[in-house]
């Protein structure tokens, strides 16, 4: 009987939470630890976490889009109107990255494709030049099957299409006078072949191009390392303060008859005015692209500056207007929604003209609109703009800011 009662009492006393003789809180926790030790085991990551871990360990995004060496995926095509281009690319760069050779090919879903073979030497004279001289060589071929043609001039309104095949070999030496001030000397050969509607320029023209550029960049983009400038460009970062000036002059010499030799000068001036700690930015831009010809020579229509598309004149279709000169002023109010998203309200005022004297207020083509940008650090990895203009409403998409 005593034993039975004792057992009963014992059971009651060892009931969880009851104080056993000699038991302590430390004992209680130790018992829990002992129990866990019988089951404790490493638990491997699964699902999304496992995927992200592997992606981070293998640096998959960089490996996929911008590796130091090897095959990767090229996204985007140069120039306006090329559409969303994708294609394979190959790059070789030694460990010391004294040079970088990149060959890439991209095709778009809009019947255009481009292939580009580029060779970069970030530091041409690494010792003597103290990392101030760089060289970029590239060879590219573009095949544009159906580029729209609306006619030439600020009032053009005839819609047709043309095909353009171009081969472009370029070289540029860049001298970094200071971190903000760069000058460049460029030269190359551009061979263009158009097949078009009746009445347009058909045939092949080869231009030898020489040029010089000066750029002064005081925008507050990331203080990228030299590696960053050349291998990992922070192209998606957007400035919130500072200014940018680029003057670019090129001489296009027609190697055939000379009838299509011309000079092209562009001046691009940008100013960024931040307020509310840079969470609101007023981005201002003035752009002038001017061409001049010798005597009776002419500028091939496909090399004329254009208005319309995702960058200048966003309410108008791509290449909506073209002529010898382009003058544009753009104001974009950018506001941070959160670190991954920005909004924008913009006004583009632009005009093409055969002569600068023909520029009139009445012919200014206005684009007003709103936009959304996805990206970090003020960048626009992907951009959507809804523009309202004389031709109606247009949705423009792009990678990177309009300017």
């Amino acid at each position, binding site marked *: 009987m*005593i034993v039975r*009662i004792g057992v*009963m*009492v014992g059971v*009651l*006393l060892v009931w*969880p*939470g*009851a*104080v056993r003789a*000699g*038991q302590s*809180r*430390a004992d209680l*926790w*130790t018992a*829990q*630890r*002992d129990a*866990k*030790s019988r089951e*404790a*085991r*490493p*638990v*491997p*990551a699964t699902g*999304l*976490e496992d995927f*992200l*871990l592997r992606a*981070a360990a293998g*640096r998959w995004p960089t*490996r996929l889009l*911008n*590796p*130091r*060496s*090897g095959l990767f995926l090229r996204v985007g095509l140069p120039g306006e109107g090329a559409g969303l281009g994708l294609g394979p690319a190959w790059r070789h760069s030694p*460990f*010391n990255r004294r040079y970088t050779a990149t060959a890439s090919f991209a095709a778009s879903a809009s019947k255009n494709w481009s292939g580009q073979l580029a060779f970069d030497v970030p530091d041409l004279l690494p010792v003597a030049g103290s*990392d101030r001289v760089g060289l970029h060589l590239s060879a590219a071929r573009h095949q544009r099957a159906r580029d729209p043609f609306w006619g030439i001039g600020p009032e053009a309104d005839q819609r047709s299409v043309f095909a353009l095949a171009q081969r472009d070999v370029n070289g540029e030496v860049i001298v970094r006078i200071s971190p903000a001030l760069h000058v460049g000397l460029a030269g190359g050969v551009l061979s263009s072949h158009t097949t078009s509607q009746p009445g347009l320029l058909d045939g092949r023209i080869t231009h030898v191009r020489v040029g010089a550029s000066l750029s002064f960049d005081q925008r507050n983009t990331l*203080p990228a*390392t*030299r*590696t960053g400038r050349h291998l990992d460009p922070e192209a998606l970062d957007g400035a919130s303060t500072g200014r940018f000036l680029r003057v670019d002059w090129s001489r296009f010499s027609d190697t055939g008859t000379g009838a299509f030799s011309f000079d092209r000068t562009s001046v691009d001036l940008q100013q960024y005015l931040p307020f*509310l*700690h840079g*969470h*609101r930015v007023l981005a201002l831009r003035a752009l002038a692209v001017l061409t001049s010809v010798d005597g009776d020579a002419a500028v091939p229509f496909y090399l004329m500056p254009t208005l319309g598309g995702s960058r200048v004149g966003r309410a108008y279709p791509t290449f909506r207007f073209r002529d010898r000169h382009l003058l544009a002023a753009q104001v974009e*109010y950018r*506001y941070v*929604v*959160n*670190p*991954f*998203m920005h*909004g924008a*309200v913009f006004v583009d005022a632009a005009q093409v003209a055969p002569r600068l004297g023909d520029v009139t207020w009445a012919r200014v083509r206005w684009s007003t609109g709103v936009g*959304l940008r996805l990206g970090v650090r003020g960048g626009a990895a992907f951009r959507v703009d809804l523009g309202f203009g004389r031709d109606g409403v247009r949705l423009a998409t792009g990678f990177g800011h309009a300017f």
Partner: protein
Amino acid sequence: MRSDRLRGTTHLVLVAMALAASMHLLALGQPTVPRFYPDDPLRYDNDRVVDIRRVDDIKLDDYFDFIENVFLSPGDRRAIHAVNVNTLDEVPDSSWFTNRIGARDLPLEALVTGPDRPVTFGAGWTIVGGKNRGFHPGFRAIDRSDPTGTVYQLEVDAPAHPEMASGAEVIGAAFYHAFGYNTVDVYLTEIDSTRLEIDPKATIRDANGRRPFTRRDLDDIVQNAARRPNGRIRVTAERFPDEDDMGRFEYHGTRPDDPNDIHLHEHRRELRGSRVFAAWLNHDDSRALNTLVLRHREGGRRFFKYYIVDFGSLLGSATRFADTAQAGREYALAWRPSLLTFLSFGLYVRPWLHQPPVSDLPAVGRFTADGFDPERWVAEYPKVAYENMRADDAFWAARIVAAFDDVRVRAIVSKGQYSDPRVVDELTRVLLARRQRILDVWLTAVNPITHAALSRDGVLTFENVAVTHEIGGRPDGYILQWSRFHNEDDTHVPIGAPVRVTDPRAELPATEAVRGADYVSVAVRTIHPGFPDWRPVQLYFRATSGGWQWVGLDRGLDPGDAPASR
């Protein structure tokens, strides 16, 4: 005969015990839980008791940590009392936490030294590897004059903000060490880039895998580093631990491979309360990424030790940049304000956008007390432990913050070795102003009674921490209700009527009910017109051969009381 009587008595006692226990169980419908065990209050949680053999370097992905905490709902979010505190509502020492300032005598020199060892660096370093992760540029190197060959991780300051991140790093390590956390020792030194050598075996990882660390990699770092007028580069040198690196810990759950880790992290007092410390120091980068778990060996036993590391994004620093105006004031992804901003084309201006600009002192960055609200302060993204913080957790942390007086704050800030003395002045000024806000809010969040004692001759004393630190004004008095406390069934039997005193001192009634009592308790209601909602604090004392031992404190917060965040 005697044995028969004894047997009979034993019968009666056992039957009575069984009946009493049974009736009690029936009455309550569940077993009773005694409030105190013999070893309470536990001063040391021996979480090294199980030898850890099977381990895994648990990797945490930064993006997953963000996604999990922002879009999913991990962890236990019940607003329950912290699970790892002792019966005095304090955190026992453990592999996570060691009570230091406020709990132990901590001389100023020790406070400033923190986790550091007595080291002197030579002028020449040999790079043994690249820094494979993190935003802060740097590399791993060995001091050539160090015969031990200890590896350090060296990190540089941004040219636009010399001394900012490096200062934050050493200051943060010292503060967090003083709070009680495990931190890795980190030092300030200068390097001469012309005397840097690269070990032929040094490697770095890029997207193509591991490859040799080249002079070019080094150039990329030193050319984007702030330089001293003498051309040298100031760096932080963080000792690379000798122990096994077991990865990081999360602010929720427990490590599945650590049998000693039994307390849910989101209910650990020192992790919940660390939100107060993070708010004070503006450590918005406090997250799983900036933690470390090392496997130590001690006496043949292996155990995990949990660290908080990487303080480069502290105070006004975001390592390469000054901190953003948003830091500490709004989560990186805050849905409602984002939507309002987007739909209003930015005309909706979030309150924090009216913050002062970045300091004119580049080493300060953006660090201000203007608009600092300890209750609303948030890290970059949510963490369950922070969200679970209750008023008692915050009060615990605020008492530690209160232990830093002006001299101590200035001494730790001076560890940043700023070349401009105005930086020390400014950081100290802001820290003290933020400290005051924290004390104003959290020392009065609960009835601020602590440090009780009941002398052998029955004199009760206790401390009102708010009064000690001159927060909120003096109370009108205290109403005390004594009880005889029965530990076995956690019940109180009142002793007499409530008594009112004006000072934190009273006498235990000398009544029959007290004589022979194993425990007595006293409920202390603080009468303060400014804080009518303060709940009584129950203090418990256990009779010992030497008198009365203070064994318990209950602030009376109910399970389900809302977390302290607003």
